């Protein structure tokens, strides 16, 4: 089906729904690279006006990627909750935006419709929303997840402690880990991106983190971010695996480029849950995503990069994750060119994930070849803090020496906490108090008697 609108002397025609969505997307480099972006500013708004009038039910009938050819399309359609959809079934995309912003859309009402929304509906409505709309509606969404602590409570924000080291050196990792814990970070997860993909190295890192956690009774979870099949193998070998990590994308073909499918994710989720390592819950999955991944795998079907991204959230949602992290600026300027595009994408991803019911965090980050800097990251950090972000990343001094990009620092998290009064996961906050790292939530100066500092002598 095609869509058309007349503006002044011009008639704009869009051949199908995916073209309409792509043309309606705020400007970004990846859609230009793919050749699907609007050709002019007016065409973009024309597409948005056209999109506003599309009934939501259209998205259930006109699929962007064929049902027969893509298991994520099948997942989206087969798991659609018609009962949850009923109260908004009559709306258009524009009508959905109005409802989301209205007082009728309370936290409770938003949670109730989550399973009735498809990624394409959510992506569509986000294209009609300004940054403040994305912030406000996301701030009303509540998503709570649990493993060894409770995350996502109102007024709370987690931090993933990311103590990466370019050669996976155990003491180097431990030093960064201690630095993070002493700065009050690590309630979301302590998660290492390994430089090596050797199972022995990864096993050693898992064992080291588990030993530290048990020795100091830290109510958090650890993860080495390696391929899901490696994690499965490590579980079989008896390695102490808390969370299963995997990068995911929004098309079957792109996931196949990652070497995964829904079946292997299900197998891993089940294997990790059977270990029974969670104490307050069994959300065992940790997913990472990012706009542009489907395009970079040449597996985007002509669908805009943001819609592909939101389709990845359908995959995530199916496995009740503890954490979902959009690594927004990591992919580079050919997908998100500058600070403006990165900020917009970060807010979209967070909003879309939360609306679908996901524990959405963001790696607020950039590479040195993007037109972005710390000021842009400060802006996005502050915006996402007000939007109720589930968790952010904590890297020493914002400088990841393994992955070679800039993320947010332990200091950045402290800034946001003091600015907005955001608390840590309650179990973790209690632990920090018991270790005298914080007092009444405030970071304390430490002397050499601090018990955590004895760790290095035994490594």
């Amino acid at each position: 089906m095609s869509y058309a609108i007349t503006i002044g002397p011009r008639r704009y025609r869009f051949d199908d729904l995916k073209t309409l969505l792509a043309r309606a997307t705020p400007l970004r480099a990846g859609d230009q690279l793919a050749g699907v972006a609007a050709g002019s500013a007016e065409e973009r708004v024309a597409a948005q006006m056209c999109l506003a009038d599309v009934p939501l039910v259209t998205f259930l009938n006109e699929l962007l990627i064929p049902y027969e050819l893509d298991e994520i399309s099948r997942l989206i359609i087969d798991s659609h909750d018609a009962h949850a959809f009923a109260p908004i079934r009559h709306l258009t995309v524009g009508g959905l935006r109005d409802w989301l912003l209205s007082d009728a859309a309370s936290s409770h009402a938003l949670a109730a419709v989550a399973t009735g929304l498809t990624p394409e509906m959510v992506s569509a409505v986000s294209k009609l929303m300004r940054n403040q709309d994305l912030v406000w509606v996301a701030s009303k969404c509540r998503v709570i997840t649990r493993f060894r602590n409770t995350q996502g409570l109102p007024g709370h924000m987690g931090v993933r402690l990311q103590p990466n080291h370019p050669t996976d050196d155990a003491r180097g990792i431990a030093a960064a880990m201690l630095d993070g814990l002493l700065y009050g970070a690590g309630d979301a997860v302590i998660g290492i991106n390994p430089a090596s993909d050797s199972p022995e190295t990864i096993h050693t890192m898992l064992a080291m983190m588990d030993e530290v956690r048990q020795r100091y009774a830290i109510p958090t979870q650890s993860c080495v971010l390696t391929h899901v099949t490696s994690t499965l193998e490590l579980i079989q070998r008896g390695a102490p695996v808390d969370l299963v990590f995997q990068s995911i994308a929004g098309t079957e073909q792109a996931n196949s480029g990652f070497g995964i499918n829904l079946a292997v994710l299900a197998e891993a989720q089940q294997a990790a849950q059977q270990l029974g390592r969670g104490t307050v819950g069994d959300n065992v999955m940790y997913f990472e995503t990012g706009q542009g991944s489907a395009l970079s795998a040449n597996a985007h079907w002509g669908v805009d990069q943001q819609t592909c991204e939101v389709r990845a959230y359908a995959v995530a949602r199916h496995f009740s994750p503890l954490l979902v992290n959009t690594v927004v600026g990591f992919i580079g300027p050919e997908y998100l060119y500058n600070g403006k595009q990165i900020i917009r994408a970060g807010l979209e991803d967070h909003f879309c994930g939360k609306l679908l019911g996901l524990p959405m965090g963001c790696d607020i980050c950039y590479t040195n070849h993007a037109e972005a800097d710390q000021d842009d990251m400060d802006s996005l950090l502050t915006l996402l803090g007000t939007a109720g972000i589930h968790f952010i990343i904590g890297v020493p001094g914002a400088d990841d020496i393994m992955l070679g990009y800039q993320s947010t620092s332990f200091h950045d998290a402290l800034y946001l906490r003091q600015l907005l009064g955001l608390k840590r996961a309650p179990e973790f906050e209690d632990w920090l108090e018991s270790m005298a790292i914080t007092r009444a939530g405030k970071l304390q100066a430490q002397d050499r008697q601090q018990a955590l500092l004895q760790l290095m002598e035994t490594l």
Partner: protein
Amino acid sequence: MNAPLTHGNISPITEDSWQDLASHTVARIALGRVGASLPTRETLRFALAHAQARDAVHTALDQASLLAQLQALGLPALSVRSAAPSRAAYLQRPDQGRRLHPDSRASLLAAGVEPCDVLFVIGDGLSARAVASHALPLIAATLPLLHEQGLRVGPVVLAAEARVALADEVGECLQAAMVVMLIGERPGLSSPDSLGIYLTSAPRTGRMDSERNCISNVRPQGLPYPLAAYKLAWLIRAGRSGGTGVALKDGSAAEQGWLDLQTRLALGATERA
């Protein structure tokens, strides 16, 4: 009670008592804080590192200087550019950086260069600074090893606004059996001048990344020139018979020659200290 104003030698910085841990990692740990924020010294130290990385990305390749240095080494050289018309286009359109500008393609085809066994291409990539500092020393360290193998080395090709795959088209035009792309890697805050080496056998347009072998982080603080040259010569020797790519596993570090070099480099470092 109001907090007293700080003056004289009373510092508002809370220093971290675990500064000794910094000896275990180059990560920015134990930075101290003012309230929750970074002390001035750290925010400026970070800004400088970022400024250097940014400059590395945006500095143009100084072809004239490289050509003069190649001439001094007695190496013939050619200049080309990719289809990307500007740095901004280069950053947003990787496809353009992988293809030769039509004029450059024509000039290579008309250059009358003899077919060769190994062709070096020097591409600016994301750090012209890496190329300016490390490309020629690396070539100079590698050439004797290639001559030992009796290989014919083609003219060095300098390429502006280049991605790795540009070397495929260059190698194809000049009928090289193998092409070595020396290219500036994406600069990190602590490594604005890291050189990458990509080796591809039977280069032609459309080769996939899985058909290459890569040696990364070439710079004195990373992988030093003699070791990088040894590794490259090893891969060239192995790749000439079986081809390059994921099937070619780098076994250079198991060779006695590698261990000897490492020992010599370590001794050199001790003597300098």
